[in-house]
């Protein structure tokens, strides 16, 4: 890790193909800033991305990265971190990727509490497949596949994370560049699974959950008396359907990450050129 890393070092030379104005630009910039601010560089950073407009992030960033299949990015990140705990592992994807096809992995990644960061670009719509409703879309949100609205409750991913025993649950907004970078940085610094849901508006397919909507409604928790170590207070904020919050909703400072509990502290890439020295003992155990 070198101290002179700038956030632009995390930029690849590939120009993003996101629509002009897409929230994902801001989300990505904040992630790069947070990585640089926490003293990481591209060679010790591993970014795993899912599939969706959001999932393209791995292409636009410069680091070690894997762009996987739809919904399965979290398990990849868990494998990477297990094998080499020295790496800074950051997983990112959309609300469809994370809360629909990948919902099972989300819950289990949260409860596994591996020391890594998960940033979800929540635009409350499927962008890449051109505008179908997503798990976080409102009940009456009209799309091609829901002309009269999905007529079902949206998932509350932060509540899901809390129910699964989340140790760091935050909400961010991509257009508040400063705050967003800070929150991702806090997630990286958290010992355990740092989860940030980011309101990252889709300017092409979602005309309800827009920049204006979030700007007008969002309440910064730093401007309230919210105590992020207070689980009940966090649950209360998270289940308040009438307000969009920004900030750290909950953080368990005592949390011990999975990798520490399981003593995963060696680089598993380092192996001998033959069987381990005492491998014959393995055979003897079958006597």
């Amino acid at each position, binding site marked *: 890790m070198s101290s002179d890393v700038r956030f632009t070092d995390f930029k690849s030379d590939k120009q993003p193909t996101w629509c002009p104005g897409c929230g994902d630009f801001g989300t990505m910039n904040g992630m790069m800033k947070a990585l640089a601010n926490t003293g990481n560089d591209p060679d010790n950073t591993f970014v795993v991305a899912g599939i969706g407009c959001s999932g393209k992030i791995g292409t636009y960033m410069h680091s070690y990265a894997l762009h*996987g299949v739809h919904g*399965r990015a979290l398990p990849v990140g868990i494998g990477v971190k297990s*094998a080499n705990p020295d790496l800074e592992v950051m997983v990112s994807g959309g609300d469809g990727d994370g809360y629909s096809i990948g919902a099972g992995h989300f819950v*289990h990644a949260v409860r596994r509490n591996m020391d890594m960061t998960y940033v979800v670009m929540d635009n409350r719509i499927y962008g890449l497949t051109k505008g179908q409703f997503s798990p976080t879309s409102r009940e009456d949100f009209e799309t091609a596949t829901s002309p009269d609205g999905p007529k079902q409750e949206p998932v509350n991913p932060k509540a899901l994370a809390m129910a699964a025993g989340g140790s760091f649950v935050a909400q961010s907004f991509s257009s508040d560049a400063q705050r967003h970078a800070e929150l991702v940085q806090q997630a990286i610094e958290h010992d355990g699974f740092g989860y940030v849901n980011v309101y990252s508006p889709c300017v092409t397919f979602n005309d309800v959950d827009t920049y204006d909507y979030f700007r007008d409604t969002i309440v910064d928790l730093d401007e309230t008396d919210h105590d992020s170590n207070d689980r009940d207070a966090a649950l209360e904020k998270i289940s308040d359907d009438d307000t969009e919050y920004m900030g750290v909703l909950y953080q368990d400072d005592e949390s011990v990450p999975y990798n520490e509990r399981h003593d995963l502290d060696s*680089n598993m*890439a380092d192996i*001998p050129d033959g069987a381990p020295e005492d491998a014959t003992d393995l*055979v003897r155990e079958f006597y």
Partner: protein
Amino acid sequence: MPDDLNWAIGGEAGDGINSTGKIFAQALSRAGRHVFTSKDFASRIRGGYTAYKVRSSTAQVESVVDRLDILIALTQRTVEENMDELHEGSIIIYDGERTMMEDFEAPEGMIDLPVPLKSLAEDAGGAIMQNIVALGAACEVANFPIENLDEALEKRFGNKGQSIVENNKEAARLGEEHVQEEYDRDDFGYDVETTDSDYVLLNGDEAIGMGAIAAGCRFYSGYPITPATDVMEYLKGKIERYGGHVMQAEDELSAINMALGAARAGARSMTATSGPGIDLMAETFGLVATSETPLVICDVMRSGPSTGMPTKQEQGDLDMLLYGGHGEIPRFVVSATTVAECFHKTVEAFNLAEKYQTPVYLVADLALSVTEQTYEPEEFDMDAVEVDRGKLVEESDIDTWLNDKDQFQPHFPAADGVSPRTLPGTSGGAHMTTGLEHDELGRRTEDTDVRIEQVDKRNQKVRTAQEEEEWDYREFGDEDADTLVVSWGSNEGAMREAIGFLEEADVSVRFLSVPYLFPRPDLSEEFEEAEEVIVVECNATGQFADVLEHDTLTRVKRINKYNGVQFKADELAERITEKLDTPQEVPT
């Protein structure tokens, strides 16, 4: 084989059949006898018929036969289930005091040996030890020194405290004494020889687990499924000694993606599952191949399709392993043919995966995975294990592999199809990989020329490997015989023994057991030299026969078995003669 002893214990699931069987198998192995076990179990935890069979001899045994000499029957059903295998002189040990066996009478020619299993067990300290009483009785019947049991009991119960061990030893002795007092050993005609050889006793799943550790596998993720779970259970508690980790995933989708992540970070990494799990992994399998990540995916086949018969034998996944997944996916498919080969092929699979940066299907079947078999410990020669990590680029060499913009090229189209690889953490080597079609830098592309270049590059790996590695077969029998028999997977053991039965009937065969399913040896010449070719496999449609016909443009005869039970040596010999133009009677 005069020295052959075929023993079984049968009862209901939950009766401790497996652990009792294993204790007896271990006792025989400790006494320097070769052992081959098989299990007959239903997919239930309690209730349902279960049996554990142990075949043993001073010579190596590699299959089951249709014969039972001593049967411990804890239920009436056990006798019914095994009637076909009992013969004149077979001994049936059962609890004469138990109501369900009250009216039991041994069929003609068999010896009925009631022993008060439960009450003797109670005398030794608890009814739960009734199986051990039966084991003691069986030792006396077979003239097998009961001291050999003691060691096996220590091994099984040692961690539960010395008093438990002593009680079990006592239970065995009470069983032995009862037979001594009530019967005359000479009436039984069994006299089991012991030797001073030291053998190890293990099953295929354990051999795979041991092979994985030997080969440097440090990360395993899996989701429990019969019959692959033993691989995970073996590794858990062992792999940690070497700095590794077993991750029980939430499902197979996660399992393969975790394994992929660990492999991408540089660990030798594996997941194991059975058919239904292979289906779920199929999507990521393509990602593994296109991202050029080395990964070993083990399929311990069971009876399908769907959830099929989870506890029964089948070799029905071959088509899935060869062709499964959308698009065209370069891959290796390597299959174990014996318990020992489960070890060797696992080591090979890891080297292939890293040398060619390709997913490898490592295949075993239920019969291999649950069979416990004895070997000389030298069979698992750790000094012979080689680790070839392929084209791994060190930090000092990185400059050689950067383009003029100092970018690392993970998919550089090398002539042999294999690009240099950097592990995360390597300075200057940062790059991304993806399941999308990409250029040499890993960046998404739809450029027609690049598409062709990258597809060709990935497929080239298989061609390179075809030239550089040996894609051989294991050969047995008479190399000049007119009849050629070919099989894959666990059929090797039964077939090798069938050769002996066939010789007795003056039928000579040449037998090829093929461990490489893709790429595989070209058998055209062998097929041409033979007058008849018979392909033996445990499935209904002859999936391997199909690919061999396709490879060699030659029609083959097929022997298929798909009732859920593995081939037996004598049965196989008979079925082979039926396929011959001049069928022979096989003496067994």
